[in-house]
């Protein structure tokens, strides 16, 4: 979906159309931008940017508090339209999903199958716009890596087909950061080695393992547009987390404990609703100077209950003495998730 949260606001409040809409924290408060309309993006506003920065870049921006319930409802409605096209849908976030239509074109030559998908995709785009009043951008390609890049290629309301024979050429000019899995750290490593574009990666004669370790062979495949990741269906979530940024940096123990307790309750509730258990608990702290630390602990016995998550989070913070100066942010998360319909009850300590 294009500028999803901001687009929902502009749809629901016609007076905001054409205005630079910024959904997130107000510019005079701590916090970040969740979404920016295309009008706001012209000023350089991006999601995840601190709201203060956004306020500076776009002083006339219309800052709106997120209405998560409205976005979730909208997401469900759009996902329902996607599901109407076939059974193979993998939602990635509230406003992104992969559709696998390959089963609808059995035996067809891959290039021909991609071409056949174009009118179907156009129809889907039109339907979303007609029924939901929102625009979506679609990428059509032979795998997830390329489809995602294609969808980002020509926003908003874009439709990009990447023919299979053109995939290496399509990728060549893009920065390495565009590849799935290349974050800030990997980008730094690659750029330091003189690899700026995906074309540089394609031409690199050496073993990429020397740069990125065991991920090297996968990175090389990605650089050539090869990706055999299958769609993941259902609630296949990898982790659940919760965090709070404080109004004022704090090391007040009762306050921090109350915050952790609330986060643990929230996480345990999500685990229970999905019949999941976790084997890893993680804590995250950010200090006034933005230094961010995470610590995690894994064990065989699965964790399910809020007080257990809370206890392990406190234990991690104490073990590594993480609260030795005021915190800007405190968070926790669980991962190593596994479906388990039955859970061990624990004694009250």
């Amino acid at each position, binding site marked *: 979906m294009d500028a999803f949260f901001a687009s929902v606001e502009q749809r629901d409040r016609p007076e905001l159309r054409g205005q630079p809409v910024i959904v997130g924290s107000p510019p005079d408060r701590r916090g970040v931008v969740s979404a920016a309309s295309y009008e706001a993006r012209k000023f350089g506003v991006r999601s995840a940017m601190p709201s203060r920065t956004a306020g500076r870049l776009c002083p006339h921006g219309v800052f709106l508090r997120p209405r998560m319930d409205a976005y979730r409802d909208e997401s469900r409605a759009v996902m329902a339209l996607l599901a109407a096209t076939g059974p193979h849908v993998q939602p990635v976030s509230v406003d992104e999903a992969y559709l696998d239509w390959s089963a609808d074109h059995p035996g067809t030559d891959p290039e021909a199958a991609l071409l056949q998908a174009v009118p179907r995709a156009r129809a889907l785009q039109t339907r979303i716009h007609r029924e939901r009043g929102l625009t979506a951008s679609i990428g059509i390609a032979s795998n997830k890596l390329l489809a995602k890049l294609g969808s980002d290629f020509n926003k908003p309301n874009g439709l990009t087909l990447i023919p299979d024979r053109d995939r290496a050429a399509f990728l060549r000019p893009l920065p390495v950061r565009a590849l799935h899995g290349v974050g800030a750290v990997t980008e730094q490593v690659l750029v330091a080695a003189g690899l700026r574009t995906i074309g540089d990666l394609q031409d690199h004669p050496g073993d990429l393992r020397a740069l990125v370790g065991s991920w090297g062979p996968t990175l090389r495949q990605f650089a050539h547009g090869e990706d055999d990741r299958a769609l993941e269906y259902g609630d296949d979530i990898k982790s659940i987390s919760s965090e709070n940024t404080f109004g004022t940096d704090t090391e007040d123990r009762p306050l921090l404990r109350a915050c952790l307790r609330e986060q643990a309750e929230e996480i345990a509730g999500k685990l229970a609703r999905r019949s999941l258990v976790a084997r890893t608990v993680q804590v995250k702290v950010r200090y006034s100077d933005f230094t961010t630390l995470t610590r995690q602990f894994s064990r065989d016995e699965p964790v399910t209950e809020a007080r257990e998550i809370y206890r392990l989070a406190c*234990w991690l913070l104490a073990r590594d003495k993480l609260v030795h100066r005021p915190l800007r942010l405190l968070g926790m998360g669980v991962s190593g998730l596994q479906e388990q319909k039955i859970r061990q009850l624990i004694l009250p300590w």
Partner: protein
Amino acid sequence: MKLTIAKDQLLTGLQAVQNVVGSRSTLPILSNVLLRAEGGQLHCTATDLDVTISCAVPANVEIPGTVTLPVKKIVGITRELAANEIEIEVDEKAVAMVRAGASYFKVHGLAADEFPPLQSFQNAKSVTFTQEKLKSMLRKTSFAVSTDETRYVLNGIFFSFKDSKATLVATDGRRLALTDEDAEIAPTSQADFIVPTKAISELNRLLTAGPVEIQFTENLVAFRTTAATEGGTGVLIISKLVDGSYPNYRQVIPQAPQERITLVREELLQALRRAEIMTSDKSNSVKLAFGRNQLVITGNTPEVGEARETLSINYSGKEMAIAFNPTYLMDPLKALTNDEIFFELIDELSPGVVKCNEPFLYVIMPMRMS
């Protein structure tokens, strides 16, 4: 120092203490065993600074003295020697000459005065038991001790000496085992403390027959056994106590059971063992369904299969189905020796209790379908 000693005696002394010697000692001397020859006995001592074990065995002491020797080497040598009588002679540079039959070894040791001194228990409080009784109490509780490093205070057995009663408790947060025995406890010796897991496993290994004196201070405990027979061995186990307060275990003991069911221990254990086969990591529960005069135990894993065990019991209460982790249910059944056990239940989400005709109580939390 010079002595002769029977191979079996030396091996007994060394094997009693060698377990505490860690493979990654930070101090070289902690890889050594302290040998002290004195008054017809050889005292062997080893420590990891948390737990110290000392064992005295009979020896023919010619020249009293002390030395420390690398425990791995001296155990290896003793075990492999062909002759039954061993002579050990140590010079002033802490070099030991070991002779037995046609074998001769020279082993470089370290001076005994570098070895951490034994903690003193002068004026310590004390309670005396028989080793058999203490061992039985440990057997009924030690299986429930937590191995979770994040739950430090549960990594040991809670000892309570109060009002002529000695109580031992162990829990890992999912089940709790408790046993008590009458004991002579002086008013000045009332106390409670937590003995860490490592000391417990050494006790389980080393207790035999005869009396054992338990001495304790604010942060240390000592278990001192006296040989039951002439010429036997006496062992001293000293341990730091777990620093922390034990949770209020009494609050989790259910007071008003709805049902009390008598079960044949061995029969129940066998049925659980079989039902457990069909459980799995993801589906690690067995369901106990109590109906009129029958108990049906099922274990199943989707797409793998299921087990169903039917036991004839004496039951006329309400129908009830409750799920447990089979390991937690079998542990006390394995530790007990009684023919019958009593299973007390309230409902499917409340803790169950296992009891028997001895002072023993086991609280087990059920599993809940989500």
